[in-house]
């Protein structure tokens, strides 16, 4: 990430949750409805605090559950409001029926989801299983790496969701615990600059709104061709979102002097023989290890997914073409597949990438720390794979069948 230190009103030390709440506040939502859940709770509290102090001028709906949070803001969004909510894990799953409606109704809702394991065993711990459990809901999924990116991504998410050509809800994901409670340096932009950045939306054609007295229905019974038409248009808008996100990132750079890359971030990939594909907070650790490995002459790079839905397959093909071996790190499972979910998706267009060996690494489940040593272990396997040695296709990095997890 390139950063120049200007265009910011102040620098503060904030947790990922505080940052998310502040980011939403900077975007001036009309309606905020959220329900507390670990590790997201601080977002709800901060929004309430900002509202109480007058910093956030929004209607707050203190809903009785996540399902109602999503239902109420979806309706408010269809009526024309800018809306925000935040959730995590069971909360996301509890609003699953509602997020399907949000997407189907093309309501430009923005939500942050603080990644946490989903039920099965009760796990109050980090993991991307909630994201994977809901991935086919028709939303755009973005994944942040650190607190600063949470702030910037939420602002960009409104530009993307409310864009007239897109009109698809956006979910910004960040790792629970690792980012939600991580307090670090965050540059806060001027309110005016955020207003300017979002004001582009006002110049676009007004979106259709559900208004009293107007002959307008929403949520009709889609049958046969009518249903297919809506779905087809939704898929087309998803495809458009890829290019739109790239464009928004460039405009963001102009305004705020920060460029994270677009759908993906390439880290030292240009001359790399081998690579890791990963997402979220683990990428910082991976970058540190890559720097160390490069000092020893190992040409390795990282491709970081910033956008998970739509899946940036073109960008991935471009970035990984010609690499000898690529390891995909998944913080979640794809039951029924032995590979991790992102790895499964990568393998689906493997023939486009060419003769690259793909390894699946599963790690970081239920707060298992993805330590530097874990990353080194993955890199050793990738190096072995690139030399044609016999390495397992799937490795649970912190788990040993004979000795259990560590």
């Amino acid at each position, binding site marked *: 990430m390139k950063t120049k230190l200007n265009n910011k009103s102040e*620098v*503060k*030390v904030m*947790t990922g949750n505080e940052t998310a709440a502040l980011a939403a506040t900077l975007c001036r939502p009309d309606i905020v409805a959220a329900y507390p859940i670990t590790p997201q709770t601080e977002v709800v509290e901060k929004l309430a605090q900002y509202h109480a102090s007058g910093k956030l001028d929004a209607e707050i709906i203190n809903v009785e559950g996540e399902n109602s949070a999503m239902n109420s803001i979806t309706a408010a969004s269809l009526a024309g409001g800018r809306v925000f909510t935040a959730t995590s894990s069971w909360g996301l799953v509890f609003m699953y029926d509602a997020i399907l409606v949000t997407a189907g109704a093309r309501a430009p809702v923005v939500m942050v989801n603080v990644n946490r394991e989903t039920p099965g065993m009760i796990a*109050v*711990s*980090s993991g991307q299983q909630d994201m994977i459990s809901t991935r086919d809901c028709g939303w755009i999924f973005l994944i942040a790496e*650190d607190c600063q990116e949470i702030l910037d991504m939420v602002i960009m998410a409104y530009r993307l969701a409310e864009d007239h050509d897109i009109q698809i809800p956006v979910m910004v994901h960040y*790792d629970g*615990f*690792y*980012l939600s*409670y*991580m*307090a*670090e*340096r965050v540059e806060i932009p001027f309110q005016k600059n955020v207003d300017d950045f979002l004001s582009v939306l006002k110049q676009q054609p007004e979106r259709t709104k559900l208004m009293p007295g107007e002959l307008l229905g929403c949520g009709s019974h889609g049958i046969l061709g009518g249903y297919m038409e809506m779905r087809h248009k939704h898929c087309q808008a998803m495809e458009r979102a890829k290019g739109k996100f790239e464009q928004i990132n460039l405009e963001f750079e102009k305004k705020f002097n920060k460029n994270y890359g677009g759908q993906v971030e390439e880290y030292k990939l240009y001359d790399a023989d081998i690579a890791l594909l990963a997402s979220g*907070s*683990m990428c*910082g*650790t991976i*970058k*540190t290890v890559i720097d160390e490995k490069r000092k020893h002459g190992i040409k390795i790079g990282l491709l970081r997914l910033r956008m998970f839905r739509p899946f940036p397959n073109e960008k991935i093909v471009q970035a990984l073409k010609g690499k000898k071996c690529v390891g995909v790190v998944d913080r979640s499972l794809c039951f029924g597949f032995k590979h991790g979910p992102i790895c499964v998706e990568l393998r689906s267009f493997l023939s486009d990438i060419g003769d690259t060996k793909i390894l699946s690494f599963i790690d970081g489940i239920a*707060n298992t*720390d*993805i*330590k*530097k040593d874990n990353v080194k272990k993955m890199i050793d396997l990738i190096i072995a794979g690139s030399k044609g040695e016999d390495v397992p296709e799937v490795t649970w990095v912190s788990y040993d069948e004979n000795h259990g997890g560590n």
Partner: protein
Amino acid sequence: MIEVRFHGRGGQGAVMASKILATAFVKIKKYGASFPMFGFERRGAPVTAFGRFSKEPIREKTQIYNPDILMVLDPSQKNSSAVFQGLVSGGIMIINYDNDPNDISHENLETIGSIDANTISIEEIGMAMPNTCLLGAFAKVTGTIDLKPVIESFKDYFQGEKLEANARCAKRGFDEVKILIKN
């Protein structure tokens, strides 16, 4: 980059201490990151927090396994193996302790800064809240940061009389910490 691990009990302000320290480093145009060890936080339960402080942006988001510095808010953990786990050689400990620091030993421990932060905080704030006093001691013992930015950063966390009292705590921590160099 220096890596600091905080050991305390729920209610002693270990997590806040790590956050304040991160703020202090950011105030001097450096970088700081802090986060708590994940668990069910309850008053009285052992709490661990981590802090990384550096001139460069901090990218690692892992827990800290090889701390350079230990900040021990809870004196009952003074010789616990969990506290010393992974301490680098030449390590530093800053501890809230009202007794002879010669009691404390570990092969990698070189410097001990001890201060009776409970008594000081009771005198200054009116309650045992050792965190800010230890932050003052941290500045003196480690020399990684001046006392001034540490106290400056309190403004993000306290107001009014609480702010003044905590600043006095930190000042006394800085002035009164006893430094013991082991060989």
